[in-house]
């Protein structure tokens, strides 16, 4: 089947009448010819299967068939007419002993004989006498009855019969042509779909391979980072520890100059340690390996702690750090250490990117948010079951608002990327590795929360972190 279809396409050929023709349409055409000319019609394929058969038993046939010998002779004649295969594309006539004839017309399509039409029996108009062959076919034939029955046989002039055949062939040719076209079209449809599918599958395989390679690279990178960070941290802890001991005078008193050097070693060491911790955190977050142990947390308490932590930095730059909240803020379900880490990242950014004598406001209030439900495709807003799925939950919103340099509109989408800094030049005036926001966002997401930013260049920036309210049953 498959192969024959492909062959159809490659040469556009069809060898069997059965494949080209819709039998119902063929039957209808034959029926209308029968209605029009009163002639019986049978259509055979080249292999001899009967595809359409519209006929009426003639009186004379009925009469002959009622006689023993007549029945045998009739069956033989009909069988012969149906077996006759015209040669050379011309119509052949088959005679019946009743004097009636059958015309066997070849069906030729695309220069090939695909079958034949058997028209008849009918009496040539030229016949006047009742033929002797009919009278002698059976000893029981009664001439008067035979004559009467024969009179009911349709009479057609030879020329008219030829015209009818030509017309029928013409109609049939059209049916064959549209059948041929329909078949080629559907074969092409199928083949094109299959070909497109094959092409896409190949492309998919290539993409999948590339993706797998990238994933493997990513895994290698993560492993490398984890290992290297760990290896760095161990000696670094020693460096910091010994510096602290030196500072504390455990190894003897130091001159003020020496003390200054040691202090620098320690603070730079701590910075380095912090950076390594951030890298490790990020790495774990990316791999979903960071464990978060949640408990009921009072947002106000966390915010107060964050303020205390960041106050010294702010005071160095004469920045006013203010705290405010609404009374009825609910508890959140969070890892207090991680929540503090998120907020400290935001506040230290605010302080860092705000010029001297600016202002940073910390606040927390109640709000609403739509909480992502597991692995559902959440972003088909207004979609299936929206009335249920889109219902917002009560939530807590932290806000860190500064009067700093602001962030250009075009950069806003990128600042959460790891290592991304708005002014990435080596001469930039602000320190840092560009990891703080990336870590903050991952941590917020691990808490099923959201983080967003609003900023106006030169005016200031506000970061909002929204976390869902603690659910009573999830303690």
């Amino acid at each position, binding site marked *: 089947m498959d192969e024959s279809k492909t062959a159809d396409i490659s040469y*556009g050929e069809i060898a069997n009448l059965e494949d080209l023709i819709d039998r119902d349409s063929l039957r209808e055409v034959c029926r209308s010819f029968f209605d029009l000319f009163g002639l019986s019609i049978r259509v055979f394929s080249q292999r001899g299967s009967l595809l359409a058969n519209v006929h009426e038993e003639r009186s004379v046939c009925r009469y002959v068939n009622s006689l023993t010998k007549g029945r045998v002779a009739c069956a033989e004649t009909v069988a012969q007419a149906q077996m006759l295969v015209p040669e050379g594309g011309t119509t052949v006539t088959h005679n019946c002993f009743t004097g009636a004839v059958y015309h066997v017309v070849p069906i030729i399509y695309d220069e090939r004989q695909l079958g034949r039409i058997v028209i008849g029996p009918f009496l040539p108009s030229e016949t006047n006498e009742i033929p002797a062959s009919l009278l002698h076919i059976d000893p029981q034939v009664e001439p008067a009855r035979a004559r009467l029955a024969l009179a009911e046989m349709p009479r057609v002039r030879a020329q008219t019969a030829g015209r009818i055949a030509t017309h029928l062939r013409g109609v049939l040719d059209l049916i064959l042509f549209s059948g041929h076209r329909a078949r*080629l*079209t559907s074969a*092409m449809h199928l083949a*094109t779909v299959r*070909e497109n599918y094959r092409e896409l599958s190949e492309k998919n395989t290539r993409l999948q391979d590339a993706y797998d390679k990238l994933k493997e690279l990513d895994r290698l990178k993560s492993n490398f980072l984890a290992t290297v960070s760990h290896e760095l941290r161990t000696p670094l802890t020693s460096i910091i520890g010994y510096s602290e001991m030196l500072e504390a005078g455990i190894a003897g008193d130091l001159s003020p100059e020496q003390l200054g050097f040691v202090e620098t070693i320690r603070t730079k060491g701590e910075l380095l340690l912090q950076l390594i911790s951030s890298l490790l955190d990020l790495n774990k977050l990316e791999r979903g390996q960071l464990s978060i142990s949640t408990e009921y947390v009072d947002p106000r308490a966390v915010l107060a702690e964050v303020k205390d932590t960041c106050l010294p930095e702010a005071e160095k730059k004469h920045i006013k750090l203010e705290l405010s909240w609404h009374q009825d803020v609910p508890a959140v379900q969070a890892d207090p250490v991680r929540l503090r880490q998120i907020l400290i990242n935001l506040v230290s950014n605010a302080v860092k990117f705000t010029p001297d004598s600016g202002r940073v406001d910390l606040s927390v209030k109640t709000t609403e948010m739509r909480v992502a439900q597991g692995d559902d495709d959440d972003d088909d807003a207004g979609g299936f079951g929206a009335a249920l799925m889109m219902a917002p939950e009560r939530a807590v919103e932290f806000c860190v608002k500064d009067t700093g340099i602001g962030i250009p509109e075009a950069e806003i989408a990128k600042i959460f990327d790891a290592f991304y800094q708005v002014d990435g030049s080596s001469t930039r005036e602000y320190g840092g590795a560009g990891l703080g926001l990336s870590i903050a966002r991952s941590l917020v997401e691990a808490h099923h929360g959201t983080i967003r930013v609003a900023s106006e260049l030169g005016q200031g920036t506000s970061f909002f972190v929204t976390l869902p309210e603690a659910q009573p049953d999830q303690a």
Partner: protein
Amino acid sequence: MQLDFQAREVTVKLVYYGPALSGKTTNLQAIHRLLTPEGKGRLMTLETRDDRTLFFDLLPLTVNTEMGLTVRIKLFTVPGQVIHNSTRRLVLQGADGVAFIADSQVAEVRANQASFKDLRKNLRENGIDPAAMPLVIQYNKRDLPNVRSEEEIMRMASQGKERIYLATATHGAGVADTFMGLIGTTWENMERQHKLTERFGLNEQAVMSDLRRRFGPPVEATKHG
């Protein structure tokens, strides 16, 4: 090519290839119009939208030779629009010869080149060495202004080995020559590979002159190269 010993038939598939709107369908229509009725099938157009071919056009021709052998020629066009690439590749399957219908307009140089590259790629993907495929090139739409000049085309043609034809398919000019050239090179190739004369007494000359006779008088002689 397909040989059916029992039916004493040879089937030859010829494909009209080229960029969108270069006049492939118009070539087949002109051939259909110019040929005498004998041995000429209906021109079948499979699926079009806004007169653009979506699948293919098919014109079957038959030549009955004196030796009782029947030569069946199937003329196909491909859809030229870039997006129908997989259809083009399917139609190209089993082709014995290709007529590349190029658009003569200077602005269409790129489109011609892209389509020709596409032809080579699709032949290769069908497992056929493009250099081994019998090919003729037609520069169509000679009636338009801003077409590449004849001298220039001939200069370029002299660097290649394919026969080049100039045509105005809408007027039927050069269409018969292109077709006769295509069947000619295709036949030479089949003769080399299958020894048709030796094995079947199938005479190229007889087939060619029969076909030539069935085209009316030449609309305009434009054979070059």
